[in-house]
């Protein structure tokens, strides 16, 4: 056994230890908490890089180290660590992007009085995500998964004194829990069907051909294959965590947290977990592909949800006015692209896009944080304007991120990963719809990012805060520059001409194709990007908004559509009117049942008891009373005396208990009672 893989637990343990240090340190220990968090991330990054270097030597091998957690009944609950190129790349990405975000937070959160708590939670978040990434057992992955949910709750609600933040934190937690419930049921079913939750276990893991082959032959009523059902249940978890339609509603609200948290959630950790999960158990999802007559295939659902989400997120983003909300919906849309890639069977393209997206979305969020920091927490893009000359570094890096996200050809990483997804979608047999949704999303993405850039950085400054904005300190701009380099350079790892990433991830050499392979599709998408950029420029760049209250040109042209999109397609209202109402109804029903049916039954019994009591009393009064009166008087007096011991003070009772326990212990020890 390779020694390194057995020590893989150190990667999540380091930030976890930093979180413990942060939790135990006194409130004023700002340097200690931040230092521990950043040192732990550097350690995790170094270890992950070492692991990556080790695994790239033999990319086809899945190295794992399993151990038994505890025995129960005839079986044992086993956990383990896994090391292969997918894990190692994710580890490096999470720890690198996380590290940069941590450094940025040093500047962004400097004025916050709960600085120490913030770094403690950040470390916990990173630890949970790294735990998800390195685990070789779905159970361990689930534990990390839930910890990610907890940490996101704590961080989104970091400014919990603001009601909106507290509500957003609750919404994020509850919405993802809905998906997690499906995931948990899927886990239990999977354990029941295969007897193992380990991914790889010398032939017995559920991702290996032995167990998977058994699984694929089982069919439920209605012809639905068991692996399809389990995959869809597990996919529920991914839908919740990765903000896919219809559970995406928490993601835009999660903007209530501090901006570094948004960057962490949207780029490196939380939403990446869902895509990573599906890519990780991809053999399970594709197990039903071989079946001749399956009514529904898991990957078809994944592709459909991804296509809907990609298009919907991009459309809503075009109508938002809040700087961070636009980026949030763009994340929703990009995650849709990743799910689409998974659904059409190219998990490699999904992971490629996940990695490039992590860099440019972290860049965009941190640059947005730098803007928000400079204009005193103004987030409405109509109120900002004209920052290009005042914040040159932020502007330049934001523009790089914007072009990477829009898919400006050849230089930026977003172009290559998006091309990979569109290429995979064009080769998918069952339907062309995902491809069309993807192409439509490309136009919208280029359009709304151009709009965002023009509104924030061009034109006149439209508020006093914006006209006095100054560039952020180096501790905030240096991470931006590093991320910008990543947002450009990362794309060259996976071009068709040199498919390094693809070969390493699959463990088999992927043949190189000409750089401009699939030229027609590529030309079409370049054309669409140009159309989106041009439309954005024509509407928002040529004549920049003059005042904060000037009407939006699109909203003036199609007021109803834009109002519908600005209200996020009214999905929140729909949920409140249906699911929320349903919940209220169930509560009211339970209340009525409790009050009248059960309460009535209990009341009836009570009346019966009362009646028997009355009868009894009459008998007693007449027959027995006189003799007992004196005795009972004595007892009553004794009880009164005794009742003085019942002080009602719980501490007094506890103290008596403790004292009695000590006396008992002394008696047993020295009283010769044994």
């Amino acid at each position, binding site marked *: 056994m390779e020694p390194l893989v057995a020590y893989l637990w150190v990667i999540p343990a380091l930030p976890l230890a930093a979180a413990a240090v942060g939790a135990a340190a006194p409130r004023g220990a700002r340097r200690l908490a931040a230092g521990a968090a950043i040192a732990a991330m550097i350690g995790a990054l170094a270890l992950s890089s070492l692991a990556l270097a080790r695994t790239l030597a033999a990319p086809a091998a899945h190295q794992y180290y399993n151990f038994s957690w*505890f*025995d*129960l*009944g005839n079986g044992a609950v086993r956990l383990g660590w896994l090391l292969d190129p997918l894990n190692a790349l994710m580890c490096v990405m999470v720890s690198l992007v996380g590290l940069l975000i941590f450094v940025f937070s040093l500047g962004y959160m400097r004025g916050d009085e709960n600085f120490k708590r913030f770094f403690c939670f950040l470390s916990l978040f990173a630890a949970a995500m790294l735990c998800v990434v390195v685990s070789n057992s779905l159970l361990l992955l689930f534990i990390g998964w839930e910890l990610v949910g907890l940490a996101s709750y704590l961080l989104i609600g970091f400014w919990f004194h603001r009601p909106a933040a507290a509500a957003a934190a609750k919404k994020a937690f509850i919405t993802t829990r809905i998906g997690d419930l499906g995931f948990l049921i899927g886990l239990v079913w999977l354990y029941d069907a295969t007897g193992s939750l380990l991914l790889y276990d010398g032939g017995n893991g559920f991702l290996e051909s032995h167990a998977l082959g058994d699984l694929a032959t089982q069919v439920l009523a209605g012809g639905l294959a068991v692996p399809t059902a389990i995959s869809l249940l597990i996919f529920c978890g991914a839908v919740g965590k990765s903000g896919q339609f219809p559970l995406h509603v928490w993601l835009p609200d999660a903007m209530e947290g501090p901006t570094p948290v948004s960057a962490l959630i949207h780029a490196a950790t939380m939403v990446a977990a869902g895509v990573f999960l599906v890519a990780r158990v991809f053999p399970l999802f594709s197990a039903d592909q071989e079946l001749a007559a399956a009514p529904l295939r898991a990957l078809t659902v994944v592709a459909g949800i991804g296509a809907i989400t990609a298009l919907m997120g991009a459309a809503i983003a075009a109508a938002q006015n809040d700087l961070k909300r636009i980026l949030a919906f763009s994340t929703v849309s990009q995650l849709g692209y990743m799910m689409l890639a998974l659904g059409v069977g190219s998990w490699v393209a999904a992971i490629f896009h996940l990695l490039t997206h992590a860099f440019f979305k972290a860049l965009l969020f941190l640059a947005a944080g730098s803007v928000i920091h400079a204009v005193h927490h103004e987030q409405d893009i109509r109120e900002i304007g004209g920052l290009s000359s005042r914040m040159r570094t932020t502007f330049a890096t934001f523009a790089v991120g914007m072009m990477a996200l829009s898919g400006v050809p050849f230089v930026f990483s977003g172009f290559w990963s998006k091309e990979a997804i569109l290429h995979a979608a064009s080769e998918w047999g069952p339907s062309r719809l995902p491809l069309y949704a993807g192409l439509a999303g490309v136009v919208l993405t280029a359009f709304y990012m151009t709009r965002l850039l023009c509104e924030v950085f061009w034109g006149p400054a439209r508020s006093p805060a914006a006209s006095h904005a100054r560039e952020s300190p180096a501790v905030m701009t240096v991470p931006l520059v590093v991320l910008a380099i990543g947002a450009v350079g990362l794309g060259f790892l996976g071009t068709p001409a040199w498919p390094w990433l693809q070969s390493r991830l699959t463990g088999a050499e992927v043949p190189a194709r000409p750089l401009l392979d699939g030229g027609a599709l590529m030309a079409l998408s370049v054309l669409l990007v140009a159309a989106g950029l041009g439309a954005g420029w024509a509407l928002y760049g040529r004549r920049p908004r003059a005042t904060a209250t000037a009407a939006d040109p699109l909203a003036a042209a199609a007021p109803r559509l834009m109002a519908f999109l600005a209200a996020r397609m009214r999905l929140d209202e729909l949920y409140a009117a249906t699911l929320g109402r349903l919940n209220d109804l169930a509560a009211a029903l339970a209340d009525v049942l409790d009050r009248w049916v059960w309460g009535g039954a209990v009341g009836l019994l009570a009346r019966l008891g009362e009646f028997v009591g009355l009868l009894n009393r009459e008998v007693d009064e007449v027959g027995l009373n006189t003799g007992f009166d004196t005795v009972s008087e004595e007892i009553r007096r004794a009880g009164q005396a*005794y*009742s*003085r*011991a*019942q*002080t*009602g*003070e*719980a*501490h007094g009772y*506890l*103290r008596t208990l*403790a004292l009695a326990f000590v006396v008992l212990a002394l008696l047993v020890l020295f009283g010769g009672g044994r």
Partner: protein
Amino acid sequence: MSPLQICLAFSSALFAVGLAGALARSNSILVLLGIELMLNAANLNLIAFWRFSPHGSPSTGVVFVVFAIAVAAAETAVGLALVISIYRHQQDIRLEEATRLKG
């Protein structure tokens, strides 16, 4: 010291910490916390005796502890519900003020 003795010493320490917490705190949530600590010290003892006994079978120690943890979870839920209703009554969760049950 043998491993068993280390475990027992540790659980005694944990028990003492929990007892001190339960007795010294006036916030009823913290008292609950202390009680949980004591309970876990007892669980630790069960596990330790099971682990270091010559004929430990999984159906003894572990099952006891899993049951105890489940019961403790239920008990905590009830306890916290009580704390909430006490808070609703007296706008305060200090234990020494909750003396309505005196005889």
